Structures are given as C-alpha cells and as structure tokens.
C-alpha cells in the first residue's frame, strides 16, 4: 500500500463516503475498489483497441476470394481440378 493525496470531484467523494458508511468500511477502501474497477475497464478497452488494430492489419488489403481462403474455403482454378 502507498499513501497519496487525491483531488476528487465533490459529488463522487460524497457518494463514496455514503457507500463507506453503509458498508462500514474505510473511505479509502471504497475509492481503492472503484479505482481498480475503472483501471480494469480502461485496460480492457485498451486491449480491445489493440485487437481491432490487429484485425485491420490481419484482414485488410485482401480480395473477397483471398478472404475466402483465409476463412478455409480453398478455391482453385477449375482447370486445375
């Protein structure tokens, strides 16, 4: 654990204090949980953007026939059969 000083919006702080009273826990515990959840969502969104960028590179620049091959549909010239 590390100690720090934060400047928070008044309404968020009031809400966090209300939750802490209702759950009979310290204000720092409520803020810590909320921060962890926020960071989890942020990390998931960041990871999602990375996957979408990977997809753009992985599937961009191919023709429909080439995408069919990438999808497992192996099309050959009929003369080649």
């Amino acid at each position, binding site marked *: 654990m590390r100690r720090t000083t934060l400047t928070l919006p008044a309404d968020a702080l009031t809400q966090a204090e209300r939750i802490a009273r209702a759950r009979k826990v310290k204000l720092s515990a409520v803020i810590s949980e909320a921060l962890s959840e926020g960071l989890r969502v942020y990390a998931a969104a960041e990871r999602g953007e990375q996957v979408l960028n990977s*997809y753009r*590179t992985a599937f961009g620049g191919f023709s429909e026939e080439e995408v069919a091959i990438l999808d497992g549909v192996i099309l050959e010239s009929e003369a080649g059969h």
Partner: protein
Amino acid sequence: MVLPASGPFLFDTSAESWLARSGDPQARVWMREYLSHHQVQVSAVTLLERVRGYSLLWRRARPERRESIEVARTAYLGGLGRVWPIDSATAVVAGEIMALAPDPPTPPRRSHHLAESRQERLARWRFDGMIAATALLVRMPLVHNNAADFEHIRGAIERAPGRFPKLGPLELVRCTSLL
C-alpha cells in the same frame, strides 16, 4: 440485437473475419463493446484454417507481396484471444456430429472461374462439425456466417439428444443478428 456484454461467444472462422472486415459502423461499435467485456474466443480449427489460408496466399503470391501477407499473419496471431483446443471430449462430440451428418448440406463453393473441390468441401464440413462440438462443450453460443451448415448440424444434434448427454442444444447466432 445481441448485447455484447452477454457473451462470451465462440466465433466461427468466417464470422470472425466478417466482423473484422465489416464496413458497417455498427459492427465496429459492437466489436469494440464486446472486446471491452470479453476476449474473442475461437476453436483451434479456426486457427488452423486461418494459418493454412495465410500460408497458401503467401505461397501463391508474387515475392513483393509476401511481406504484407506475413505482416497480416503476424497481426492475426498477435491479436488472438482464447483458442479452445481439440481435446478428447471435442473429438468424441465431433465424431458423433460427423456420424449423424456425414454429408455437407450445400455443394462446393464457386466464385467466377474458381471452385472448391469436393474433398475441400468435405474437409470444411468436418471442420464445422469440430467447431460446433467445441461450442457445445464450452457452452457458448456460436456466432457464425454460414446458416446452411450450422443449422444442419443443430438439427442433427436435436434429432439425437441421447448422443450428446448433458450437452446442447447448439445455440447459434448469425453475425448479422448481432447488430
């Protein structure tokens, strides 16, 4: 519309590429929202089909294009989410599906002067059976872009529930229904 948060879903090979390539802004919004909750989950069969596809395109490509195909392949592998293996349970369920539905319901694919061979069509049909078996075992809806094949498999499973104890029904979601 299917809520992205209601996943995770197993994505069939062509559904994954459809979502990745769709020009529909709604598809992008759906995928971004899905990825904020879940990973893209695929069968090892999808990975096999994809890698074979990149490798075939690379072998057929002119030398100057090969590097971009390799970049695409590396990007795909780098963005992979969860890949479900073909284990003994999957083999048992897929074997039952293949016995119940030995023949594909539609003919080989054709496109202009190109055609899929009968052997390739049968192989693809069997791969679909393995993907459906994976969806049954991991108890996830299967997102697909191939209604004819997967509805046929679902029908076969529903006609012989005794061959799939404690499994099923196969839940299917067409990718266009996601949005």
